[in-house]
């Protein structure tokens, strides 16, 4: 089996140490970081995503696969010339004020990162002001807002209103997600997109980037 296929298998199985060892082997064998990322890790996560969509696997399997990918890709950093990487998009992420849930948001971040996005993760319980400041400072193409609680869902809309008030609304696409959030709710509060899980979030960002 080629080392790239082995990387895929180790990633899908969530075996981080094995993925790290295989990356070293791949580099020693002359493969470039881009090939290893694209044909090893991103290819693996596409399989993971498909299995997740089909309910063959659930969040724990996704988390350990994403972790294996992160471990593997971190091994490649010394081999990547700075400025060499072009990112899919710059994305600021965070869980809204009053909400401390981060698993979904972390998974979205890891999956997007694995698919070539630059992620600026503001963490949990992020104030509306902090989101506005981050949009001002980082000038991301996307702002991803997460809320797990029905009690914090309205805050998603408040962040959008605050961007409007700061004159930044047309500078960034706002994506929302979280267990109680729906497409209907996303439209109601004027978000640009909704994704029901981390896999759909990757698809959504890719689609929106392609559409310009």
């Amino acid at each position: 089996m080629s080392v790239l296929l082995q990387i895929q298998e180790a990633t899908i199985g969530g075996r981080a140490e094995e993925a790290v060892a295989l990356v070293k082997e791949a580099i020693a064998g002359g493969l470039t970081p881009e090939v290893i990322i694209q044909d090893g890790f991103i290819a693996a996560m596409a399989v993971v995503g498909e299995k997740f969509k089909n309910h063959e696997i659930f969040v724990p399997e996704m988390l350990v696969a994403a972790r294996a990918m992160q471990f593997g890709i971190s091994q490649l950093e010394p081999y990547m010339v700075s400025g060499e990487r072009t990112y899919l998009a710059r994305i600021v992420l965070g869980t809204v004020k009053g909400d401390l849930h981060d698993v979904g948001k972390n998974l979205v971040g890891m999956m997007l990162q694995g698919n070539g996005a630059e992620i600026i993760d503001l963490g949990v319980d992020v104030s509306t002001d902090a989101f506005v400041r981050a949009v001002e400072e980082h000038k991301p193409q996307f702002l991803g807002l997460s809320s797990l609680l029905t009690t914090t869902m309205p805050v998603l809309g408040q962040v959008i209103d605050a961007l409007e008030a700061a004159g930044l609304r047309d500078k960034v696409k706002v994506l929302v997600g979280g267990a109680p959030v729906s497409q209907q709710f996303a439209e109601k509060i004027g978000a640009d997109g909704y994704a029901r899980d981390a896999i759909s979030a990757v698809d959504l960002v890719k689609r929106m980037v392609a559409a310009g």
Partner: protein
Amino acid sequence: MSKRHPRETMTPRERVLAALYGKKTDRIPVGNPTSVATVECMEACGVYFPDAHLDAHKMATLAATGYEILGYDTIAPYFSVQQEAAAFGCEMTWGDIDAMPDVRKNPFNSPEEIEISGDFLERPATRTVIEAIRLLKKEYGDHVCLVGKVMGPWTLSYHLYGVQKLLMDTILDPAKVHGFMKKLKQVPVMFANAQLEAGADVVTLADHATGDLVGPNTYRDFLLPVHQEITPQIKGPAILHICGRTTDRMSHIAKAGFAAFHFDSKNDTLEAKTIAAREGLLLVGNINNPDVLYAGTPEDVKKRVFEAAEAGIEIIGPECAVPLRTPNANLKAVVEAVREYCFR
């Protein structure tokens, strides 16, 4: 709202308990095994979050609005999911008038680090719930169904150890996850029995092994054996609450020994009822919170209630603790719609 409809022959308490024991009722009971506290109810009774989480009189006063103002057949004083976590000494944020409490840090790294001390039920967060039930029992005990609540060992592990770590360890270190379950299973038993002794008629056991996070095998392998141990030790009927998608694990849940299962609107109601009927599981729920109760109209609520009634859901109510800014008109519409459906 709390006034009896002319065609009602049972008290709210009789109605809920009859439904839970599979007996005939005068109409479908309306109850929420989690929480129906709203900002509107807080304004009406003068008791607000976060005070109501740690003061038994305030907790009881606010909980009673579920019956007094909304007309539900149940009164459920434990509003959040964090009283035990607070009693374990987790650093808390107690929230606000419209925000539930939550744990700031997950303090324990292994089951061995957790100590369940002899005074666990005497700590403010746990004692408040027990005391509130005792107060409610005096006032409403012979008339309204009093619902206690406890967190199961899986949810306690989320709070004490951390959700992401626990989920990953189901694959990376399953023995550790089993260790947490083994260590924590005694907590819901002792807290539930204290609430039952204080006057609760039924307890909700929330253990969020939801399809939004884990697969049916996780419930089967990590939770089911522990639930089977817990349920016979609880000295009263217990309702399991798990939000999100759960139809794929309902056949396992049916074997766990709960009186009923409180389920979410993410499940197709008819499909869920079909599985539950086959497995002999009673269902409570599953009116959608975010789109229907929070953002919808009384007319939307009525439509969903009729669907749930038509499907044969045994106790109708919100799918989960309601968003705190849910309009009371929508919550009352659940009772009105059930009466309309049953007495038409």
